[in-house]
């Protein structure tokens, strides 16, 4: 069941991570990812541009915010416009004209989010398309094949140059994902299947020199299952590991324990990507627990609902209280929205039918996430990460001691106290 007989291994996978600094108290690390489309400083938050677009902002705007890696989604792109077209368009980089790094998710999460449209067998996931009712089978091989195909020899279509010609720089294995609220034998089945699917993905991967295939640790909220998964998957020499199956409906108390367990068993010299995590508090805590990479739709999605992220939480700018508030969203923020516009103007614009309002907030929320990660990183490099955490919690909750219990516990487990 552990798949030892079919254990696939290649020549030693590239070491893509360089550690620059480590917190002497917690497990926080600052580092650099060396990827085909450039270096990425870690810890890093990766905005999600599911369908080859970062919602209403241009790639030039995204670049100007300092973003150097973002996400695309295999499931969505595999349906529309499809891998053949993307290949003709000079790969996903060429199609969306993004010169920096791309990470593509395998489509595994859609098994949970679109569960009514999917059916899982050992072969793969059978999806019924919501667009035309057609059925597609997403197998480990097919998923890797699509992600391999989201590439061609990319020649830039504009002066906005791209380095190299490799396609999505990080690709994810297809994993058997179950909702974190599911219990019982299905969780174990999914965990072992994910190991087998990892081996199939490794075997099917045509471009290990150009695209980094990450494994995804499963096991739900069961410590034993997760430990088994960690033990097995770390035998496979992949360039990086993701921690999956969390960030669903589970309690935060269970969540952090699984993250901590995972980071304690993952190799230090490879990046740890915690999938689906994006609330500011969660980011800070999980950096303390030893994670390097994060993605989440939350900041960009909440922007489109009129919510701006700030160090004290969020501002729902559609509310009347902001009607005559002539200051920027955040006076400390350096993003174009905060440089040029007031809360009052954004409030007025949000009540109009001009989509520009949403774009202003998308720009700001991405800037907020990136600035947060940058500040976290600097504090690790300058050996004052625990103080940073206390200041952060103080700003967010009024007092560090008012921070949610789960976060206090999680931080305490790695040596950071808040009171």
């Amino acid at each position, binding site marked *: 069941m552990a798949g030892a007989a079919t254990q696939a291994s290649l020549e030693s996978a590239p070491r893509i991570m360089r550690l620059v600094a480590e917190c002497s108290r917690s497990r926080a690390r600052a580092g650099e990812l060396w990827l085909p489309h450039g270096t990425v400083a870690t810890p890093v938050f990766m905005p999600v541009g599911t369908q080859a677009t970062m919602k*209403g902002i*241009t790639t030039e705007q995204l670049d100007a915010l300092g973003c150097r890696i973002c996400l695309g989604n295999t499931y969505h792109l595999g349906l*529309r416009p499809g891998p053949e077209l993307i290949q003709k368009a000079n790969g996903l980089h060429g199609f969306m*004209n993004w010169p920096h790094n791309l990470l593509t998710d395998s489509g595994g999460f859609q098994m949970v989010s679109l569960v009514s449209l999917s059916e899982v067998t050992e072969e793969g996931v059978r999806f019924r398309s919501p667009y035309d009712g057609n059925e597609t089978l997403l197998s480990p091989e097919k998923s890797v094949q699509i992600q391999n195909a989201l590439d061609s020899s990319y020649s830039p*279509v504009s002066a906005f140059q791209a380095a190299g010609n490799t396609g999505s720089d990080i690709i994810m294995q297809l994993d058997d994902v179950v909702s974190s609220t599911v219990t019982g034998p299905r969780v174990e089945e999914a965990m072992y299947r994910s190991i087998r699917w990892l081996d199939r993905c490794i075997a099917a991967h045509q471009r290990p020199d150009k695209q980094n295939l990450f494994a995804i640790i499963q096991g739900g909220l069961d410590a034993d299952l997760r430990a088994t998964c960690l033990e097995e998957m770390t035998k496979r020499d992949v360039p990086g590991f993701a921690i999956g199956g969390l960030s669903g409906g589970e309690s935060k108390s269970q969540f952090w324990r699984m993250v901590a367990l995972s980071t304690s068993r993952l190799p230090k010299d490879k990046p740890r990507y915690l999938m689906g995590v994006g609330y500011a508090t969660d980011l800070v805590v999980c950096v303390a627990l030893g994670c390097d990479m994060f993605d989440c739709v939350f900041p960009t999605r909440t922007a489109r609902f009129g919510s701006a992220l700030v160090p004290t939480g969020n501002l729902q700018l559609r509310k009347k209280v902001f009607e005559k508030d002539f200051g920027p969203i955040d006076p400390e923020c350096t993003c174009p929205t905060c440089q040029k516009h007031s809360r009052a103007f954004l409030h007025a614009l949000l009540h109009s039918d001009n989509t*520009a309002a949403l774009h202003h907030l998308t720009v700001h929320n991405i800037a907020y996430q990136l600035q947060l990660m940058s500040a976290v990183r600097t504090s690790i490099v300058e050996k004052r990460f625990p103080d940073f955490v206390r200041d952060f919690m103080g700003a967010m909750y009024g007092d560090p001691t008012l921070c949610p219990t789960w976060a206090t516990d999680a931080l305490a487990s790695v040596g950071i106290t808040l009171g």
Partner: protein
Amino acid sequence: MKLSLTKVVNGCRLGKIKNLGKTGDHTMDIPGCLLYTKTGSAPHLTHHTLHNIHGVPAMAQLTLSSLAEHHEVLTEYKEGVGKFIGMPESLLYCSLHDPVSPCPAGYVTNKSVSVWSVAGRVEMTVSKFMAIQKALQPDWFQCLSDGEVSCKEATSIKRVRKSVDRSLLFLDNCLRLQEESEVLQKSVIIGVIEGGDVMEERLRLISGVSRPDEVLECIERGVDLFESFFPYQVTERGCALTFSFDYQPNPEETLLQQNGTQEEIKCMDQIKKIETTGCNQEITSFEINLKEKKYQEDFNPLVRGCSCYCCKNHTRAYIHHLLVTNELLAGVLLMMHNFEHYFGFFHYIREALKSDKLAQLKELIHRQAS
């Protein structure tokens, strides 16, 4: 402000408007257009993406219909709408209505005019109107007027007379209130011109006309300034402007006959109103519909040789994908292209007038009009 005409040929006026703005040192070329905005922002565009566009006009059009509901906020803000919307450097013209959104008839009285915002109807007497303008502090504003006369509908002479009378009364009252306010004196009232002789020195701005062929017709009748809502309408239907305006010099010039009397152009609402039925208009032959399947694998830019951000960075296939997947970026990129294409058209109009080639340009445009 000073209207300085370099040339008048066959009724078309080429020149500049000088000494514009609060500091009096801005200039605008005519014939020209104004940047169309919704609630003080170019549609879909932030400062960054707006400034990607080449040839953005020096003056933007604001609409009272989108700003009147923010009267209180702007009054408290004190520093004027230009600063409030983040366009402190731009010249601003405030029109009564949004040329794109239809305005229900029957809401003008002897004492008030109504505008229609997202929030509903805002009724304005002369004093409320002027109070709003005092809070906005635009460089120009259209005077309160009765614009419910359209040649399209069967309008009685009685109704036309009533409209003229009301508008004159509104204008008188507005001018009176302007005299009493230092703040308001910094703005120029754009009034309705009635009958009489064409006065060379007066600027002519037309509302509701934005299509390329109609623009040229109006220029031939002496109009100087236009609104740029047509590129916005094109954007909203998922289309891109592709019409050519780079006229070739034609050795066999065809002399166009001048029509008898030149129609006098009246400002604002007393003009022949072209159908402004919002964004449900038909696709014109000046544009291509990027939703069509044939663009799915078309890796050309929207218009070959176009210098806009969209054409320099993206393909028709990508825009098609964005439209099919209902992504917000489609509107952003199309707006950037359509504005730039349209502003380029106006540049070519001025060049054509300079070198006496307007006939060629007109022929080129008419060849492309359906």
